[in-house]
Each structure stands twice: as structure tokens, then as C-alpha cells.
């Protein structure tokens, strides 16, 4: 299946240089990582050598190394070094499939297929990413009451909620048919208490939709 478009994978603050992470969009496995210069990358999560997940690997400086045999890939996806053959001039054909990568609205995005223009969103503060074992539509339907929102508007994979904590923008990541992630961000720079309130509401949403109970905000 070919997917086209831009999809949020993580909050910007969840991916510091040095720690790669796996993310799945509609079954497509992606590794997201940040190089030492701060630039985010989204690649197919598979080393061409033995198929090991690159998200299990290690980021050093401007390259990422596979956990299995240490093959090193630069920011363009090209294999630069094979430790077992240190003198080898690595063929250009050895490379990881790369996707578009962008940062907008406090989130890191991957551009899959023919994605079109990268997303443009106002700056925001990342609060937390929530992983929920229900279909995305089930989580989406529960969002307004979970955050006690006055209204909800959707634009692509982002919904905007007006809440007591101000404007929340939530990036929607459909992992599979029964799993999704919600990347919750807040406009401006909310304080610790507000961020904790938002995070707790998100946690209640997860626990209630997974158990199939009412999602109303506790008093």
C-alpha cells in the first residue's frame, strides 16, 4: 500500500540527538533520529544488511549505526562504513530508504510517498505523546470530552481543541487498525501545573477508551 502525505511521529523534545526511536504509520515502520547538528531524520526502520531495526541502533555524531554489525549510515541514508571491512569503499547501492522529515508545531513529521508541501503550524510546547490501543477514530471521538473542550476542529492529521488550558493541538498517528498515538501540544508556554493537568487528562482518556468506559473529565 502506498501512503502519501505528512504524518506526525513524535514530539520534538522526545527525540534528542543520540536516541533513535521507532514509529509506525499505518504499518510502515520508521526510525526517527536527530543528528548532532539538530536536524531530524525519518527513514525506513530497516538495515539493508540483515533487516535489523535501525531504531535499535546507536546515534553517534552525524551518523546512525546498526546494533547488529555496526554498519554506519550518514544523514543522506548512505552507508559510510562497514566495521568488518574497514578499508572498503562502501558501494553507493548500500543505503537506507529515506523519507521526508520536518518539524512543525512542536512535532517531528515524516513525509511518505509523494507528500507534498511540509506542514506549517504555529509554535507550540510539547506536553506528552500518548499511545493507545484502540482505533484512531475511537480515540478521536473521545477527545473533546476527555479535555472538556469547547470545540474541536480537524485539519489533516492535527486536531485543535479549545480547553481550560488554552489551545491544544494534537497530532494524530495511526499506528495500525487498533493502535494510535496522540502527540499533545499546547499553544504558548504553559506552566508545570497546566502541563500536568493536560497530561493527566490524556492518561485518563487512554485508560477509559481502552476499557470502554465513559471519558468525562474527573472533577
Amino acid at each position, binding site marked *: 500500500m502506498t501512503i502519501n502525505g505528512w504524518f506526525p511521529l513524535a514530539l520534538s523534545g522526545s527525540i534528542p540527538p543520540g536516541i533513535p526511536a521507532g514509529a509506525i504509520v499505518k504499518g510502515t515502520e520508521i526510525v526517527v533520529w536527530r543528528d548532532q547538528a539538530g536536524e531530524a531524520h525519518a527513514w525506513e526502520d530497516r538495515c539493508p544488511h540483515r533487516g535489523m531495526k535501525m531504531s535499535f541502533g546507536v546515534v553517534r555524531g552525524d551518523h546512525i549505526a546498526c546494533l547488529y554489525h555496526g554498519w554506519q549510515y550518514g544523514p543522506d541514508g548512505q552507508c559510510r562504513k562497514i566495521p568488518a571491512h574497514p578499508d572498503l569503499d562502501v558501494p553507493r547501492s548500500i543505503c537506507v530508504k529515506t523519507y521526508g522529515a520536518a518539524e512543525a508545531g512542536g512535532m517531528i513529521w515524516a513525509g511518505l510517498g509523494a507528500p507534498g508541501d511540509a506542514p506549517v503550524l504555529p509554535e507550540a510546547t510539547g506536553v*506528552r505523546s500518548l499511545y493507545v490501543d484502540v482505533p484512531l477514530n475511537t480515540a478521536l471521538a473521545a477527545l473533546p470530552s476527555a479535555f472538556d473542550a469547547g470545540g474541536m476542529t480537524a485539519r489533516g492529521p492535527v486536531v485543535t481543541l479549545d480547553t481550560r488550558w488554552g489551545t491544544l493541538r494534537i497530532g494524530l498517528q495511526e499506528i495500525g487498525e487498533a493502535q494510535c498515538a496522540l502527540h499533545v501540544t499546547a499553544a504558548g508556554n504553559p506552566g508545570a501545573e497546566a502541563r500536568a493537568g493536560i497530561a493527566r487528562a490524556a492518561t485518563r482518556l487512554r485508560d477509559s477508551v481502552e476499557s470502554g468506559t465513559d471519558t468525562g473529565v474527573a472533577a
Partner: protein
Amino acid sequence: MSGAVLYNYDLDIDCYTVRMIAGCLGIALDLRQVDLYPGHKHLSPKMRALSPQGRLPVLVEDALVLTQPLAIILHLAETRCPDHPLLPQDAITGARMLDWMTFAAREMGVAAEARATAMLDAPGDLAALKDRAKRAFRLLDDHLTLQGFDGLGFVAGPEVTLADLMLFAPFALSRDFGLDHDAFPALRLWARRVRATPGFSTMPGIPDER
């Protein structure tokens, strides 16, 4: 005080945790290797005499025999280096540390069981254990997310304690039983901080990121 003998299997989570924490505390242990897999020597009559439930690690110090990681870790810290920064000096932080050490032993212990079932031929329902481990990881991820809003990087407060070190390995090694780290962003960041503890050491399966 005579030396402490640790009956050890290098690839076991609990054995690693005790070795790694002893290293952070600067305590030398006299290691005795036990062939847990494939030899199942932890179930031999000699080891059963020390640990009737057939667990590793076992700490032996004169007449004292300890078979639970939490007890081993606290005993070593409190008798050898009670003023070590990994052991909080105020009672409230100490209580929080003990709370999370108990969580590590109980809820996170499921992850060690799941891994032993997946890798070391231990009996158990892998799918059920994996689901329970995931729920434990979520509780820890929820907690560390909230700690982060208050500028607290570790489970008991702003500084790393024995509790963080005890919680580390079950998370770091969870891919061994098929549980990825994708869904636990706060744990990924915390694990990186835990690795920076002076004296920290790795084991097979935990890449050395330095």
C-alpha cells in the same frame, strides 16, 4: 566484614542489576558463575540449599544468605557505603526510592520473567507476561512524564537513586521479549540519564552508547 559472594549468571536481568549497582557503589563482589542456561544449575541441590525457590542472584556473606535483589542491593549499600549519593539522606526521598524499588521488584519483575520465558527456557505465558510488562512500563512512563514537568529527572526526585538503577534493565532489555520502546518516550529519555550514573556498566543486549 568478610567479602560478599554473589552467585551469578551473566545474562540474567537480576544478576546484571546487582552487579551494575555494586559497580556504581564501588563495591567489589566475589562472583561465582552458575550455568543457568542451558545447564539449569540454579536448580542443583547445592544452589537449592542456598535459594530454595531456585532464584539467582544469591548473595552470601558469612552466615547471611539473601535471595531477593532488593534486599541484596539495600544490604550492600547500607552496610558498605551508607553515605553514598545513590542512597537518599532524607527520609521522604528515601521512602519514595523504596516505593519504586518495590515496584521494580514486583511490577517490573514481570519483564524479567517475560525475558526469561522468551530467551532462557523458563516456563510462563509469554503473551500475558508481555502485556503485564507493557502496563508496568506505562505506569513508569506516566510517572516520569509528570516528574519531568516539575524538573525532576528520576523516579524519586531530582537525582538518580538505587530505584532508577533497579528499574533500568527490565526496560533496556525489553526488546529481548518483543516489547519495543516506541510507546515510552519518557522512559527512553530517562534511560539515557540513568546510563550517565558514575560506575554504570552494560551487559550483552544493552549497547554501550558512550
